[in-house]
């Protein structure tokens, strides 16, 4: 136990002092800030494209203004219906002039835009339908509004969400958490592989395995790496939380479905617990495997070629998990949510967006915890033998032999 603690402490200190750890944390923080702030930036850019000058008869403008308000920003109004010069639009910081006229058939709209590609004609059409109906039917605005807006209520029967908006929000959060899970597992597993490869290539491996039980060495390394990955995750989530908390309510426009930026307020404690649990399971499985394979490396240049095949289940798990966000109960998704190395991603995705039967969660946990044990035993044996194998990369038969040697 003492040697395990010694290896663990030394490994934590080594990693904390390493440039790669700090760069990982800092780049992670920058990445999260970018992911969270980028939509807001695009939102502000989008808002610029919604700045309109409204032109036409005063009655028409009065009726249209309230209808356009929810999607556009009316920056100026004028009676004269004519094409503006670019300078006029620039002076009013408007993207377009919307000219309203009336004829026998109803309202006619001509949009004089700086960039026609940025103007949504369908949105204008949709917004001005009530005005056209009002003019054609001679009903007042309120009557038209009540006729158009048929009340629809969606009641949840089997979903864990009360509304479509809640489900969308959960999917968005799950997507981000899956991405975080993927990055943390990949980055830290590679770091542990590099650390083992460094010990192998620096030839300190023999001194180490003569001084400490290889199992304790491997366990200490994986535990240290898991601790630092969790620390990294805490920093990243704290940054994401802080940035999410800065988002003022309703700052993203009148239509809630249009909201930009990510708010983490929708994460439930079950989601967080699931995230931590499946992170640990996925991390222990993947990092042990990466460490074992790292021990087979003779030159650091071989890291890429040997780690390539190990990425496949992790990348596969991530891709299936993304599909699981849309179809959490499809047979392929359900089956893969039990398979080691893939399940940590897929089952987590299912838990966030669907009501997964408890027996499935339990079975998946049992299979994957058993898999950790099996991988640790096989990985430990490969590691013990691999650390002392120099020269050519061992043949699969040698690896198989190492795994069978108690």
């Amino acid at each position, binding site marked *: 136990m003492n040697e395990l603690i010694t*290896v663990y402490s030394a490994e934590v200190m*080594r990693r904390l002092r*390493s440039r790669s750890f700090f760069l990982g944390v800092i780049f992670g923080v920058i990445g999260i800030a970018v992911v969270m702030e980028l939509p807001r930036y695009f939102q502000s850019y989008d808002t610029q494209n919604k700045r309109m000058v409204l032109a036409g008869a005063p009655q028409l403008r009065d009726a249209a203004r309230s209808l356009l308000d929810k999607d556009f920003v009316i920056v100026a109004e004028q009676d004269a219906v004519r094409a503006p010069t670019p300078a006029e639009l620039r002076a009013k910081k408007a993207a377009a002039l919307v000219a309203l006229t009336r004829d026998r058939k109803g309202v006619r709209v001509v949009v004089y835009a700086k960039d026609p590609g940025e103007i949504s004609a369908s949105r204008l059409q949709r917004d001005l339908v009530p005005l056209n109906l009002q003019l054609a039917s001679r009903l007042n605005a309120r009557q038209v509004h009540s006729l158009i807006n048929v009340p629809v209520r969606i009641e949840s029967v089997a979903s864990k969400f009360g509304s479509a908006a809640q489900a969308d929000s959960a999917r968005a959060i799950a997507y981000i958490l899956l991405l975080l899970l993927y990055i943390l597992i990949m980055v830290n597993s590679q770091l542990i592989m590099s650390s083992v490869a460094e010990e192998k290539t*620096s*030839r300190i*491996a*023999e*001194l180490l395995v*003569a001084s400490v039980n290889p199992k304790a060495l491997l366990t200490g390394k994986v535990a240290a790496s898991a601790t630092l990955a969790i620390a990294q995750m805490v920093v990243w989530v704290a940054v994401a939380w802080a940035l999410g908390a800065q988002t003022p309510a309703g700052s993203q426009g009148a239509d809630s479905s249009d909201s930009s930026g990510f708010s983490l307020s929708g994460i439930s404690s079950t989601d967080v617990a699931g995230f931590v649990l499946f992170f640990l399971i996925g991390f222990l499985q993947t990092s042990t495997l990466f460490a074992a394979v790292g021990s087979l490396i003779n030159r650091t240049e071989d890291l890429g070629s040997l780690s390539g095949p190990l990425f496949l289940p992790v990348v596969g798990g991530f891709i299936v998990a993304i599909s699981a966000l849309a179809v959490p109960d499809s047979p392929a998704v359900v089956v893969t949510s039990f398979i080691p190395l893939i399940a940590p991603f897929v089952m987590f995705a299912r838990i966030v967006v669907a009501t997964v039967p408890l027996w499935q969660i339990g079975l998946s946990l049992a299979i994957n915890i058993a898999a950790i044990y099996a991988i640790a035993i096989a990985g430990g044996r490969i590691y013990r033998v691999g650390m*002392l194998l120099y020269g050519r990369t061992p043949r699969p038969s040698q690896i198989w032999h190492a795994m069978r040697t108690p």
Partner: protein
Amino acid sequence: MLSVQHVRKGFGSVQAVSDVSFTIARGATFGLLGPNGAGKTTTMRMIVGIYPVDGGSITWNDRRIDERARRRFGYLPEERGLYGKMRVREQIAYFGRLHGLHDPQVSQKADAWIERLGLGEYVNRPCGELSKGNQQKVQVACAGVHDPELLILDEPFSGLDPVNAEMLFSALTDLKHRGTTLVLSSHQMWQLEQLCDAFCIITQGRNRVSGTLAQLRAAWPTRVVKVEPATAALRGVLERVPHARALEGNGALYYELPAGTDYPPLLRQLVAADAVKRFDAIEPSLQDIYMHTIGQA
């Protein structure tokens, strides 16, 4: 007492060790000799538990070597390696902790080794910045920091300059006097000859000869005598000894004689033949025994 009995180890089609046996008394210093590929490193690795034996047995104080016993061993591998970014004192203390030492004991012992091996000016330098010789001294300190009962050193002198080799030699002599059981392999025969109480020469994974230097010499079939001056009369006496063989020599007569040759009568004959200025009976060196054994193999 370390007892290695008929151990075997193979790797696929290669039999690295076929049958090696020796016994080392507690506190003794033992030289394990052999050419490259003879099986020395594999034997050492089996003793420290890196490799399990395929056959035979290894015991320490008449008990199978378990994890606990192994923690009281120290090992300097032939393949040198250190954590390049870890500082010297930190590295030595780390290996002390791995062997069960705690603070403040581990710091005191690390400092003692640093002083003993003249590493004082490098204590806070990352090991990767040290010269090869100094790195090797750090590795020796890592192997010995926990005052092991049994210290196994695979080629400890290779790569060291004469000053550092002398420093290491004196550190090992100090350990020997303190009762540490030492097992060394080296190609520097004169150092082993001075340091070791007993030897085992192995080739192709098998024992060839083993024992103390006196025992190895006793088994040596010939002796060399040096006689001065190199006169024809003295040469004639030596030529008459059965199975005598003249060797190359400068200013003196060198003859290889059978081991059982009785020197007093021979000396009397020489003195009677001419004025003898010098008569030396030269015992075979470890190097001679080694070369002879390897040659036979």
